């Protein structure tokens, strides 16, 4: 084998294949990690930027579901300083070989199929990350703890409120943070330390267990369900790494809305303005935004390329958005390139990229006369209304609260 790569102590693998079906129309054409967040980011900017700041410069991004936009977004990795001569970021879709070819069957299988990618770097450690969360974390601290503890695997955990513990994968540990038991969504949790889906494995251990798991036809090929329990069963040393920063799963419309709104708090949990740990993103080529004389702004985030003529209260506005004169935006997220017509009202909504809302239209209306053909309380809870990318809403159309609009409305 020709060696192009310098050896790396640590390689990161980001699981970015998930569909994120609970985000409804937002993930119809893009994978969940490519979902926009916070005015100019996408979810995957967080793990990628974390890798850069942690000094991990060999990164594989495992894609499967709707990868086009994610591929285009990551491109050569230069936005995250990951266009490296040796290492860098690689998008790794499923592939075929002479023997066989198959989709990624589970998280463990996705890594198994890319053992060849990892082994080119001759790493000592492999960090496995989910591409689904908003958090700023120094993975280097976890790797250091892993080395010091001479662990086989280290799993990042975060304290969650006891009443919510049964929604998570819970790690039961001894006083020295050795993991003694793993319970997936326990009815009666014994601990409130939840797995963050962030793992550090010693390379030989990972290689061995992934290979064994692959040979077990009954396995779901999943880290949480199969790999971790198998390691515990065999008495390997598994250690919990406590993380106490902001960590948010944005897997539902409501949690995505909340995480965006939390940025507007007086002391937000996720400090984006931290110069020592910037979140990098692909920056569009747009001039600064323009605020017109008749505009009114209160507690909001606004990005480059916007033209604001209306009123915005407690909202996050992505780049290149136009808000027409007399329009009112409240408690909402307006994604890139959307246009809100004159006099339109948008209440507690997520407006997808490139959407056009007509003049005088109302999005998120409580009025009985509002149109309810797209109401979808399974996806849109908590009075949130969601407009899918590129839909056009006609002038004066009133859309009922909790709608998930997937088509144009005249």
């Amino acid at each position: 084998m020709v060696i192009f790569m310098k050896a790396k102590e640590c390689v990161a693998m980001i699981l970015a294949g998930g569909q994120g079906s609970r985000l409804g129309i937002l993930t119809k054409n893009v994978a969940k990690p490519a979902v926009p967040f916070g005015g100019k980011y996408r979810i995957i900017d967080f793990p990628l930027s974390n890798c850069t700041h942690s000094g991990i410069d060999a990164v594989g991004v495992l894609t499967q579901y709707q990868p086009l936009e994610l591929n285009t977004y990551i491109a050569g990795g230069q936005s995250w300083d990951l266009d490296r001569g040796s290492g860098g970021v690689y998008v790794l879709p499923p592939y075929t070989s002479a023997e066989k070819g198959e989709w990624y069957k589970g998280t463990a299988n996705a890594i198994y199929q890319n053992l060849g990618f990892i082994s080119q770097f001759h790493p000592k450690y492999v960090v496995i990350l989910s591409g689904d969360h908003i958090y700023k974390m120094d993975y280097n601290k976890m790797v250091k703890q892993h080395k010091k503890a001479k662990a086989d695997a280290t799993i990042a955990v975060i304290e969650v409120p006891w009443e919510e513990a049964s929604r998570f994968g819970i790690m039961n540990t001894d006083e020295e943070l050795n993991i003694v038991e793993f319970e997936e969504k326990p009815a009666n949790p014994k601990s409130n330390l939840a797995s963050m889906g962030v793992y550090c494995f010693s390379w030989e251990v990972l290689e061995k267990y992934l290979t064994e798991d692959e040979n077990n036809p009954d396995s779901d090929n999943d880290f949480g369900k199969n790999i971790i329990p198998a390691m515990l069963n065999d008495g390997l040393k598994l250690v919990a790494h406590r993380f106490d920063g902001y960590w948010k799963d944005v897997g539902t419309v409501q949690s995505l809305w909340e995480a965006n709104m939390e940025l507007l708090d007086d002391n937000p949990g996720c400090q984006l303005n931290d110069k020592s740990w910037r979140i990098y993103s692909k920056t569009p080529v747009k001039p600064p935004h323009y605020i017109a004389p008749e505009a009114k702004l209160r507690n909001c985030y606004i990005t480059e390329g916007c033209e604001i003529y209306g009123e915005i209260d407690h909202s996050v506005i992505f780049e290149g958005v136009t808000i027409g004169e007399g329009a009112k935006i409240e408690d909402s997220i307006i994604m890139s390139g959307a246009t809100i017509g004159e006099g339109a009202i948008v209440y507690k909504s997520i407006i997808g990229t490139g959407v056009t809302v007509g003049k005088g239209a109302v999005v998120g209306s409580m009025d009985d006369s509002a149109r309810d053909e797209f109401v979808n309380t399974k996806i849109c809870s908590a009075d949130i209304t969601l407009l899918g990318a590129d839909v056009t809403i006609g002038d004066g159309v009133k859309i009922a609260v909790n709608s998930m609009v997937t088509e144009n409305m005249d």
Partner: protein
Amino acid sequence: MKNDMLGLIFAENPEVSMGELVGRRALAAVPFGGRYRIIDFILSNMVNSSVINVGITTPHNYQSLTDHLGTGKAWDMDRKNNGLFILAPADSSEIPEKLAGGVDTIHGIKNYLRRSQQNYVLVADCNTLCNMNFDEVFTAHLESEADVTMIYHKIPHIPERELKRHILLDADETGRIRDIHVYPAQQKTDLSYMHMFIIRKDLLIDLVDDAVAHGKHFLSKDIFLPQLNHLHFQGYEHTGVHLKIDDIKSFFNSNLSILNKETRDELFGLKNDMPIYTKVKDTVPTKYGKHAEVSNSIVADGCVIEGTVKNCILFRGVYVGKGASLENCIVMQNSQIMDNCLMENVIFDKEVVLRSGKKLIGQETYPMIIGKGTVV
């Protein structure tokens, strides 16, 4: 498609008076429009016009410029062949700086011109901001079979005191230039030269060599004017936005002029996909606080606005505190205006701090300038 023309940009211009703004930076690196440096405009125009080889001459003070340009990545000019070349000062120690004109500069970078693959050169000053497709100018140049194509802008009534900063052209009905008035006392024509021209590379080198041999320094006065009857000089009219920055007042007014939507849309190429590129800074979106009152202003990313802002240009990372009030101000990157300050007609260079409760009032005709890093 790439074309057979390279770009040559002068990062300095001895004829401008930009005061404190150029104390420690090249003219080309003067910040503009919330997130740009003035060189971004001419450079982006060239990139958008399929020019893939650009040389930038930097006589002195070039650190801020090289910081900004880097390898040219932001302009997609980090290429294996061609790309962006920063042409550091040649040894011009024999010529006093004030005298050194375009002739000496081009003479100093002759090797770069010779080594380049392209056969034509677009020579341009950096301090005229516009959105122009040079591909079209180049096509017109080839079609007219002219030796030199000079780009001009029509200005019907130039105030008398400003005439001494204009070079005016006389063109016949075919567009051929018949006379050149360098810094005239009276306006006899409304064609104002934009300090951008296209010429065959070997001809440029010959003309420059000859001028140097005769102790001449200036392109318009010493090369174009004497050659008017020997070579074919053709005019090319640029219509539309044209912002010339040559003193503090024009800098101030040009910045504020992008508050006008038509000017902004055209200058930033929003309608015709001719964007202006600049160095990426990875700043967060701008946060408007609960008491912010902002009207008719351009605001870049990374600002935190708690006070009142009217008719202003705010660059990246500016902080405006509670109760502070700004009107007709240009505030550059990372400057901080603390609570209850009052500012009118003021230009803040980068990283200025205005302590709480301070008042700074300039005149519309003479804006006040506060230098980089000052704490008031």
